[in-house]
């Protein structure tokens, strides 16, 4: 019980000024990736080989929220 309470109290810190999540993630292939690059700002790209990618990008829709 003590451990849980300590954990919970310490975790409340920073919760009042949260940074929102602006990024979206998708599994995509090369063709979709080209389209995505044209449209959005890419943050991270993981090459999964065999024409597969995992991509994090900034979605402007999230910025408006």
């Amino acid at each position, binding site marked *: *019980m003590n*451990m*849980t*309470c300590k*954990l*919970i*109290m*310490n*975790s*409340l*810190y*920073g*919760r*009042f*000024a949260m940074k929102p*999540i602006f*990024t979206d*993630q998708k*599994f995509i292939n090369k063709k979709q990736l080209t389209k995505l690059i044209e449209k959005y700002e890419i943050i991270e790209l*993981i090459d*999964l*080989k065999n024409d*597969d990618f*995992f991509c*994090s990008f900034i979605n402007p829709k999230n910025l408006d929220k």
Partner: protein
Amino acid sequence: MYDGKNKYSWFSENPEELFNQLLQTKYYGYSVYAHNLSNLDIIFIFKYISYLRNKYIIKPIIKDGNIISLTIEKCNNIKITFKDSYLLLKDSLAKLTKTFNVDTPKGLEPILIPTWNSTNKYYEQANISHYNKKVEIINNYNEWKNKVQKYCENDCISLYDVLIKFRELVFTNWKIDIEKYPTTPSLAFAIYRAHYLKDHLIPISEGEVFDFISKSFTGGSTDMFKPYGENIRCYDVNSLYPYIMKTSLFPVGIIRKFIGDITILNNIYWIGDCDISTKKDLYQPYLQLHANIKNGMRTISPNGSFNMILNSPEYFNSLKDYNIKINHGYFFDSKKTYLIISLMIYIN
């Protein structure tokens, strides 16, 4: 994997069997917890998940490199959500099983070491110096295979027991289901909101006010020391965060705008635009501001004259080293709000 009744394990290099088992209608809406999913398990199943996208809808939520949740669903009959229990209980499974005193404690990890006639070099580890925990050393492949499977199953059961106990604990005390909250901060906030938040306390700041206040946000300055001493007394200061939350003024309640010197009013929490200059060249200036330089945004602590957004505690703390002229800003009802005091009383 362990679903509360049956345990399953597969000795294979492909997670296909695991997913065949998981992606069944009977597990619709289930949460699948893996301890340290973001940094360990996901590495092995990530590629397979990318294959699944042709048949299933995959929705990941990732923040700061941590996989907060990953949902795999199809039509209305298959839906599972992967979650990282490490984000909820930030400790090793071995310690957690001890803390929660569960029936299945974490076992010793079996390690296969090479022998002169070994046939399965792929699974062998000649050097085990990187383990900082106790391990069980085995030199027979079949025995190791058997034990490692049992070890994994045991791990799943331990984690399941820990989570069930944690869920029970949180539910009995605060009537909140941990399944809806993937991380400890979100759970803590939910508990706070549900039981301890008073009406009209925390204002929603947005637009102009938010932009103004957010400019005053910087990370705290830190110092590094090489600890050395002879004949000294050591003190370890704990729980500073709850102490501050208990005793300090907080910017809560109605937000009002001001122009001019706000310090004529006592006991007011304010955030204001200030013209600042250092009284002399400081060795370690401590007021921080964000500056755009060639390589992007940096936090700097300058000497000299500059303009920045300050809050009232910072203002009073820095009067001895800086000349400060307050221009305008926002002030709050600023009570000692006992933001989390009711939660603290409950715990004590």
